[in-house]
């Protein structure tokens, strides 16, 4: 098994709707998408953002774009003008998600052309 950080296999953009942040996670190459879809579950994202996301995490799949969309409810300090946060619009939730590490087998890593890390 090896660990790989999402920033090696995905890019992302995030935004806000009220107190909910949305993070669109996009595979850097289409063949990485099944890996994202399998590993980056709503539960894992909720755990990743513990202390930041106080509500539920919803996940939607867009295989046509090689992308996942996450809604992180109750994450922006009330949202919009109510929020006291530097990032009241959730703009940097995208890169925060890219910090996540996932585990894959050496075989799969080799098959996807992902360099050995660590």
């Amino acid at each position, binding site marked *: 098994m090896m660990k790989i950080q999402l920033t090696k296999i995905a*890019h992302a953009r995030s935004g806000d709707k009220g107190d909910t942040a949305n993070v*669109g996670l996009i595979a850097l190459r289409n063949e990485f998408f099944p890996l994202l879809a399998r590993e980056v579950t709503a539960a894992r994202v909720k755990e990743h953002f513990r202390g*930041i996301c106080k509500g539920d995490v919803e996940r939607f799949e867009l295989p*046509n774009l090689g992308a996942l969309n996450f809604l992180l409810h109750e994450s922006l*300090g009330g949202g919009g*003008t*109510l929020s006291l*946060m530097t990032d009241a619009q959730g703009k940097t939730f995208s*890169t925060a998600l890219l*910090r996540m590490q996932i585990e894959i087998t050496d075989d799969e890593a080799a098959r996807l052309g992902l360099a050995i890390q660590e």
Partner: protein
Amino acid sequence: MKEKIRIAAGQGFWGDLLDAPVRQVQGGPIDYLMLDYLAEVTMSIMQKQKARDPNAGYARDFVALMKEILPACVERNIKVVANAGGVNVPGCAAAVAEVARQLGLSGKVKIGIVTGDDILSSIDDFLARGIELRNMDTGDPLSTVRDKIQSANAYLGAAPIVEALNQGAQVVITGRATDTGLTLGPMIHEFGWAADDWDKLAAGTIAGHIIECGAQCSGGNCQYDWQTIPDLANVGFPIAEASPDGRFVITKHEGTGGRVNVPSVKEQLVYEMGDPHEYITPDCVADFTTIQLAEDGADRVRVSGIKGRPATDSLKVSISYSAGFKAVGTLVYSWPDAYAKAQAADKILRSRLERLGLRFDEILTEFVGVNATHGALAGDPALDAAEVQFRIGVRGDDRAAVERFTKEIAPLILTGPPGVTGFAGGRPKVEEIVAYWPALIPKSEIKATVEILEVV
């Protein structure tokens, strides 16, 4: 019917690059210029401006822009569609008409005026008739903030824009209209799409979504390969090149900076996305899981395959209301022990606020350089950090308490941890919070009106 039309986006928000729309007009062929001026809080600002001056309440930048580009638009028959009217669409139209007269364009310009979105004066009538306008996010009834409401507007769709264009408007000015309607309207007008041709309406809607944030789809704020994106100083704003069959290409003018490719368009597609199966607008429900993207040469992305479904029976309403006060103060602590000093300052300040008996709904401390964007995910800060910014904000209904808080920041310089600076800006300002209340209203309650103002 034209085989294709080019719709150029000129503003991603009120405050975007001032010369972007000028460059869209001058930089190459376009048929339409669409301009989005209204963020959620903008309407309440405009409502306040109108309360002070009945002639105000719209985006004045737009009038100045028209002065610059209207002659070229008339000469080349470029139509302008903008939600610049705010809470005073007729006032905005009158100002543009005056500019047109001054430019010697009398008899050559028709201005379409779209109204009917402003429902502020009807709120009590709605509530009395059982239209509750509950908050879509919290479920609370509007009566909980009734006496604090500052503005209320329904989001109009593409239909009244199409009507104004059909009547020959060179410039269409709306109040609260959906960003996507500003792009979809010209397509319906040019291609004669039926009101129930859901796939095409969805395609036009998604084209609007892609270009509505300006350069955010053409290289701006783009993570993918960002270091190689050329010449952002000269970034090209996006153009949707639409065809009658609903397919379109996203591109930008030749010779501009930035980049349009599949990754840059994907990033914008997922921006502010909810459930991708149902992107709901007044015009249709678009399904983002049907979008197909392909590169079509340099800085061109072809978009096809889009499916849509019938529109819902509701319109979204955006209500702004007064929600208390807030203030944010900052100080910068330097090496050595920058983070420890900033943390100590936070403890001291909070203790003083406590002793003063000040009560707030929320107090938030962030340490910029340590945890302000990624929280605990950022890990432990470097022990030898050159500096850390201490940032503390408070929010509450009691203006006097927030005001008192703003006077407690500067004293930390002489009465707190050493190595502190960064107070050149003076005391933080107390800000009145205008919050946003999203709701739904039956479409049958909203009547959009289109008038044509001929410049004589």
